[in-house]
């Protein structure tokens, strides 16, 4: 079963238009960009990896001739079939990885008139995965003792924060949910935030580059919240900027969530949870 991209080309003009053919081009590309952090500035600039073409096709919708004045609609249809042994991935806009599908319409025109071109992006969602997702909930407790990367553990104020995420295997259309309880804290809490992070890995000649960048940051608590009262964890996955977790030979797109607790003395406590996103 192959899905199709269907629509109409609309040409509106006051008078009849002379042209030398109207064509449509559909293209799907994965653009990989090496981060300067992983490979030095120059390499990043020169060695950007060649885009991977996932799909490409071209059709002529009108032979050279004349389009009458007024509004003309020409219907078209493209089968969405990947090139060769490639797979179609979901549309995704990241920092180092971009998966984009475009449709371009060109009208070639006789001498002394510019050719006309119009491009638009279209979104692709994967077919839902058949298998059932195991939510795999996770409980967590954060105390000074559980922290890593601490320089002076003694200077840390005492606190106990417990909570759970309802799922780490998340359905992309469903929000991330859970609860968090500040059981005690010596220092007042300033803010509690959920940071959604994308981890993009690009393979290249010298090995691979792995970069984590923030997608969005959602505050779930502001000020010195009531101790002992569960605070909901709730975050909607943004469209376009998230896609089902993706692992290919050339690149990987993964997601993580950080629970960030900012104390009043500007101590920053972060707890990281890798997520696996999927579409059902």
């Amino acid at each position: 079963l192959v899905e199709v991209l269907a629509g109409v080309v609309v040409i509106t003009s006051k008078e009849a238009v002379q042209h030398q053919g109207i064509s449509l081009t559909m293209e799907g590309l994965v653009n990989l960009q090496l981060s300067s952090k992983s490979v030095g500035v120059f390499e990043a600039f020169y060695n950007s990896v060649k885009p991977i073409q996932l799909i490409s096709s071209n059709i002529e919708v009108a032979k050279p001739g004349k389009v009458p004045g007024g509004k003309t609609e020409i219907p078209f249809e493209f089968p969405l079939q990947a090139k060769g042994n490639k797979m179609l991935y979901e549309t995704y806009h990241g920092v180092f990885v971009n998966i984009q599908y475009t449709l371009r319409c060109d009208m070639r025109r006789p001498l002394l008139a510019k050719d006309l071109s119009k491009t638009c992006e279209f979104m692709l969602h994967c077919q839902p995965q058949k298998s059932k997702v195991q939510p795999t909930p996770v409980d967590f407790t954060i105390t000074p003792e559980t922290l890593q990367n601490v320089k002076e553990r003694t200077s840390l104020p005492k606190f106990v924060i417990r909570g759970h995420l309802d799922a780490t295997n998340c359905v992309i259309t469903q929000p991330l949910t859970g609860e968090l309880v500040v059981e005690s804290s010596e220092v007042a809490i300033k803010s509690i935030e959920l940071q959604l992070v994308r981890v993009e890995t690009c393979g290249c000649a010298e090995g691979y580059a792995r970069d984590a960048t923030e997608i969005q940051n959602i505050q779930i608590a502001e000020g010195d919240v009531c101790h002992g009262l569960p605070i909901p964890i709730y975050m909607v996955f943004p469209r376009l900027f998230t896609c089902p977790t993706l692992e290919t030979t050339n690149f990987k797109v993964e997601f993580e969530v950080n629970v960030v607790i900012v104390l009043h003395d500007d101590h920053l406590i972060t707890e990281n949870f890798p997520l696996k996103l999927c579409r059902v």
Partner: protein
Amino acid sequence: MHARVRKYGAELQRCRLDAVPVDLGDYHPLKPITVTDSRSRRGGRKGSTSSSSSSSSSVAPDPLSSMLEGTDPLSLFAAASASETPTLSHSSSSVELGRKRRENEEEVGADFEPWSAKRGEILARFTTTEKLSINLFMGSDKNKASSPSSAVSEKVRTRLEELDDLEEGSQRELLNLSQQDYVNRIEELNQSLKEAWSSDQKVKALKIVIQCSKLLSDTSVIQFYPSKFVLITDILDTFGRLVYERIWSMCSDPRPIPDSFSVEDVNDTAKETCLNWFFKIASIRELIPRLYVEAAILKCNRFLNKTGIQETLPRLTAMIRGIGDPLVAVYARAYLCRVGMEVAPHLKDSLNKNFFDLLASFRQIHGDTVQNQLVIQRVEIPVYLTLYSPAIHWILQCVAYRAPDVLLTEMMERCKKLGNNALLLNSVMWAFRPEFVAARATDFIGMIKDCDEAGFPKHLLFGSLGRSLACADPPESERLPILNEAWKVITKVRSPQDYINCAEIWVEFTCRHFTKREVNTVLADIIKHMTPDRAFEDAYPQLQSVMKKILTYFHNFSVLFSMEKFLPFLDMFQKDSVRVEVCKSIMEVFIKHQQEPTRDPVILNALLHVCKTMHDSVNALTVEDEKRSLALLINGFIRMVSFGRDFEQQLSFCVEARATFCNLEPVIIQLIHTVNQLAMETRRVMGGSHSRKTAAFVRACAAYSFITIPSLTSIFSRLHLYLLSGQVALANQCLSQADAFLKAAVSVLPEVPRTISVEGKQRSSEAFLLDFINSFLSTLLVVPDHPEQGVLYLVRGLLNMVQDYTWEDNSDAKVRVYISALPLLAAMSQESYLYTIPKVDSNETLYGGDPKFVAEISRLCETLIGQVLDHLKTLGREEGVRRQGSLAFSLFSTLLAHGDLRNNKLNQLAVNLWNLSHKNGHCDTRTSVRTLEHIKQQAQQPELSHLSDMLLRLSLQSRA
């Protein structure tokens, strides 16, 4: 001129209509239209027509009702619904009933006090003199980390302030705003939101809303926070409405969808747009804006799925737990409840959950963070706690709305469990049904007593309790203990302002359930508290309200004034304007509720005092309307004073009143009327013949009027009162007094100005004067001549005055007076007069038809007619032919009616006048024709047969 002989009795007999027996059910215009009871009618409606026609005979045949067979459409509907409901409830299944109940639940009834009612109150109550600031950052979140921290130089800041637009990336920080500036700024934002929306800049609109709701996380100048909440949620409401309407209009293509649409009616574009809004809002970084903005567009969930609102409300409720500041959190809850009540009032669970969450986080209020903040802002705990009231009131009001008693009891128990729950207790008393509170009033008092004194002020708690008790009654047996307990606390409140605020509320309860004794005690207490340092000066509105409440419950003025402390209480109103206001309200109640005239000295003394206060407030600057309303009230009082048969007492009351109310003319006039009435009453009691004592008394009454009238400034009042008093004196056989009154009236006549002001407009006085003279003339018929003056000297005197009066140029008024004097003279020359006054000999008996008297009258008539004819001549010369015609015709009519036309000269004169009036064709032909018909009819009588000869000589112009 010779007057024709009149036989008044016979004429009257002839003129009288045939007496027709009136039957009771007959139509009469003044008879009230009977509205028949619709229920009794129901049988008739269903039954045969005969039954309905029989019932309509009992109804007045009002044209409208007769068309509808006696039932007006409204009562018909009422009858229909009354007949339908019972049958419906009989047959309707439980499903039907269930549906009805559900509908009820989904609507918020009129008994739910809407937010709009609270808005103004909050804005007025929570104000500040401190400087406020607005920090708006219209940029994207990415730059945010750097800009606020980096020290923006003062210069840059001011430059940015000047930027009035809200463009991308601009930041505005407005400092040192006064409260009014702040309000204006917020209003500007509201405007720019609407502008942005209408110019299709949806993103900008959203940014404005986000920035505004962000202001709600700022608790600096905390006293102002409730007002800030009101202002900003207005913007949020606007935004919510705009978004909803936009999406609604997107699905309205091609035709509008019904208000009760379902998800299936919504097209995909609309759904996608709506979803987009929710995605955008879900990605707002900060908690508070995200919460508020999502709550604002809660209603839009209806476009997406059936259960959206139902799922969102609990989530948002839980989300509020993340707000650390308890004040910010409680207002967020209030907003959520408000939106929830509007959009889905049937979802009570999340309302309750909000309340329970509030209880759970209650201890935050006394946490360190809050305490530190209060120290920095120098705000005291009681003041801080009152900031919560509007929000908690609102939440509880939503929770308690149509909630079962069980739930309310549970809520109360939960509140009880929390330590130091005064704040909650206060809101519970505010928001729960008064009946609920009243039934447990004793419990509440116990709880109030248990509250910590340091936190929420107790008098506020008692104030709230009192408010509930003013609307609902506690059990009978508990009332006195309640009052005692409450007052025990109230009386200990030190600040007079706090005291009076609370006492004012409890006065209602006291008045409602107790007697004057208790009210008196309360008043004594109020006086005791409010007198030191003239504290009452700052509490006039409350004191006025106390007075109003007392007056609402005590309509018996003898009880009211027998309260020892009532007048001392009245004395506390020392500012003139307020004092008068209070006196007016007392008088209004008196006039409205006093049924019987009174002579109770307590009432009279007190009310005289009250009225005097009102009267004394009149000065040169008092506006006319105010004077009128004061006079109206005082007149109402005077009318209610009656000493029964003790007429002398009544007169002396009037004497006193005249001295007291000398500045209000309408009152003086009323007093004269009262005295005249008194004289007539005396006459009635004596059966028309006075004893020596009563004769002296009625003369005293006349003397009262006589010396009072000249003090009036309105000339027509004076004239009419002279005439009236003269008539009264005459009726009481006080001839010389009557003479004096009438003479005085005549002597005042020349003073009548040519124009008077009527309702602020200058109008010619001529018509009024003519009216007066005519009625004066008709009185003169019965006034006997003074033995020492010549014949008809009053008539002569009047006519002389008329002659000398400076009439308007080109006016026929003088001549019209002459013409109207002719009927009087004719009447005077009759053997027996048309009317007489019992026990007063008129000229008819004095002269007994003496020929000399008759001759005198004839001479007078001739003079008058001569004057009229002269005037007619002058009119002929000028452009006044029209006036000439009409005057000639009216003289002709007078002669016809009153003159003896057998006299040839007079006959000829009449004919000439007829011709003169028709000469120039200005007369009304219809009148002429009817006059001729009248003469024809008259001529049929034997003694007037000569008229038929004259008739031949009168020709109509049209015939000529």
